[in-house]
């Protein structure tokens, strides 16, 4: 009975206090707040990758660029999900958009997020307009349409927004618009994520979070995680296509123009090698900044260093130095720079990088709450695994898995309308 009543205090279910912790202190920001910067980071990173092709014209990235753009769009709604899941009053979440209080770093979220969402949506529309029109026209030409096809026809008609012009000039304009939007999108994507870093970095009460480096660290690790996820998913999808091409399944059964197995393999290798170079550059930047922050804290030794050193060097040593730095940074870095790099090794490295970035978010969010404001006590976080009420589901393992799974489900649906591996018509 006592335990049941005590459960009503938010955070008590997963917080264990040690030594002197103030009575109201709990780990209020739990796994979903780890997921929030992780997911926004993926969104921003995927977009930056797609922009490398659209803005800077890195031709070799043509295929993965479009893939990343669609994936970024699928990830977008998921960036908001963890925030909604962690709110104590989720139905009031909309207040942030409707009555923003602009001295708060969170208040701008609505504006930054919707600006970014409109840019991605607009860019996608310009990229896929031709596809929409062609699909609509072919469905329109089909006189014996089934009910389902009628619905598709209607959907694509709506998606064209009435812009049916496929002349050379019109398509040229489309390309220009894509380039412009991708150009504007890069700073906005960086802002979206840098500002997630600002939300943490500006909490002056938290000794671990408060550093002006936080936004920059977040941007770099965002790009790292976004690129790594795009490589990983791209390889998985390409492997599936290669599998189907080999066994003449699906599209390869009847379409003579479908890309051959060799062609797919060649494209895959080329794109992955190219992108992993960019991944390395951003990894160097991210790691440098993170280490700079750590060294600076250790060197200046302000009041909070005593407790931070205990947390970083002793209590969270495994999570920070083994899981995050060694397994998530150094090992994949070596895997990618040592000679004989191939697609398989890069893919494994990317999975490790993703894990490393996740651990970095974990160590920032949970690590920042691992010590008391009294600097005389510690708090341990126990991730709820088996949920026994709504709260331990939402802010437990299964809540986090729901957030991770959603973009893939969305991607599957979006890919039906905007196939990422579109046959090249005029690009």
């Amino acid at each position, binding site marked *: 009975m*006592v335990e049941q*009543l*005590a459960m*009503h*205090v*938010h*955070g*008590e279910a997963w917080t*264990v*206090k*040690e*030594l*002197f*912790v*103030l*009575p*109201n*202190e*709990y780990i*209020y*920001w739990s796994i979903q707040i780890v997921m929030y910067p992780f997911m926004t980071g993926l969104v921003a990173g995927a977009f930056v990758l797609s922009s490398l092709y659209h803005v800077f014209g890195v031709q070799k990235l043509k295929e993965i660029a479009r893939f990343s753009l669609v994936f970024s769009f699928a990830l977008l709604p998921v960036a908001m999900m963890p*925030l909604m899941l*962690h*709110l*104590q*009053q989720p139905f*009031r*979440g909309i*207040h*942030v958009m409707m*009555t*923003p*209080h602009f*001295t*708060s*770093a*969170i*208040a701008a*979220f609505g504006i930054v997020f919707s600006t970014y969402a409109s840019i991605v949506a607009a860019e996608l529309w310009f990229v896929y307009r031709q596809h929409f029109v062609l699909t609509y026209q072919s469905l329109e030409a089909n006189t014996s349409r089934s009910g389902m096809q009628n619905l598709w026809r209607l959907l694509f008609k709506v998606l064209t927004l009435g812009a049916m012009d496929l002349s050379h000039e019109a398509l040229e304009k489309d390309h220009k618009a894509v380039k412009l939007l991708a150009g504007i999108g890069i700073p906005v994507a960086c802002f979206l994520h840098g500002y997630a870093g600002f*939300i943490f970095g*500006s*909490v*002056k*009460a*938290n000794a671990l979070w408060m550093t002006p480096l936080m936004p920059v660290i977040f941007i770099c690790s965002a790009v790292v995680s976004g690129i790594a996820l795009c490589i990983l998913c791209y390889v998985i999808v390409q492997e599936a296509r290669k599998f189907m091409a080999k066994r003449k399944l699906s599209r390869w059964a009847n379409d003579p123009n479908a890309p051959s197995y060799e062609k797919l393999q060649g494209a895959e290798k080329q794109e992955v090698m190219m992108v992993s170079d960019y991944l390395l550059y951003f990894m160097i930047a991210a790691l440098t900044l993170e280490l700079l922050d750590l060294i600076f804290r250790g060197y200046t030794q302000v*009041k909070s260093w005593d407790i931070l050193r205990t947390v970083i060097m002793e209590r969270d040593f495994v999570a920070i130095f083994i899981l995050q730095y060694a397994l998530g940074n150094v090992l994949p870095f070596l895997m990618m720079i040592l000679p004989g790099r191939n697609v398989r090794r890069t893919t494994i490295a990317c999975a490790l990088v993703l894990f490393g970035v996740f651990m970095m978010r974990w160590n920032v969010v949970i690590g920042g709450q691992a010590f*008391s*404001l*009294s*600097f*005389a*006590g510690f708090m341990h976080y126990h991730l709820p695994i088996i949920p026994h009420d709504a709260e331990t589901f939402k802010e437990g393992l299964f809540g986090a898995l729901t957030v991770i799974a959603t973009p893939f489900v969305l991607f599957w649906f979006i890919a039906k309308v905007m196939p990422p591996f579109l046959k090249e018509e005029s690009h």
Partner: protein
Amino acid sequence: MQRRDFLKNSIYVIAGASIPLSALEFLDPREVLAKNPSIHWAFLIDTHKCVGCGFCVKACKTENDIPLEANVTRTWVERYVYTKDDRRYVDSPDGALHGYTESRVDLGKGEFKEIDPENVGKAFFVPKLCNHCLAPSCTQVCPVGATYKTDDGVVLVDRKWCIGCGYCIMACPFAARFFHPVEKVADKCTFCYHRITKGLETACVNACPFGARKMCNIRDINDPVTKVILNERVGVLKDEFGTKPQAFYIGLASEVR
């Protein structure tokens, strides 16, 4: 009527109609009273007088509907024990709701430490509550403006508007905030606003048998409590955060954070 004229006239009507609407501001008499600049609430704690009985915590929880058994509290009392061999122990079991009736120190995780009374160098109690800062970081970070500072200097939370994001809880350097176990919104000490605006004392001041807690209007220089704050040597908690706390302490030790 031409379409041009119609549009023109519509704009005139809308513009004209919006002026008196914006001019009409409904004034709540209570709001006018609260704007009274001659009142600014402040708190004075004399740590020498506190004995750690916990009556203030009990009174506060009862007065403000914070479940007694919930492990969160708007005010609490900390115990500091320094041994002669230079060890420091701090605890605040249940926020001192039941008072310090035991000599052993709570180390968390269900562990306790018995301290030899002969070995105690010094020991004292420090009551804590929201400092109702002049420059509060909690109201700054609220994304919807649900927590705010009244003109008479009290930081409050609008329970109907709080979205429960926890940013204010994170931003408070004093851990004065928590999620209300029943209301599911951010909660904190209100200086018993419902009482002080009626001329009553706060529940904790009222319950303190030793006069360790006192409240005053810091703008009233004839108030005896104000005189203490203005004339004696008083300190505030964690001034390095620049929030300008309005709860003043007599006999504050540097180890108290």
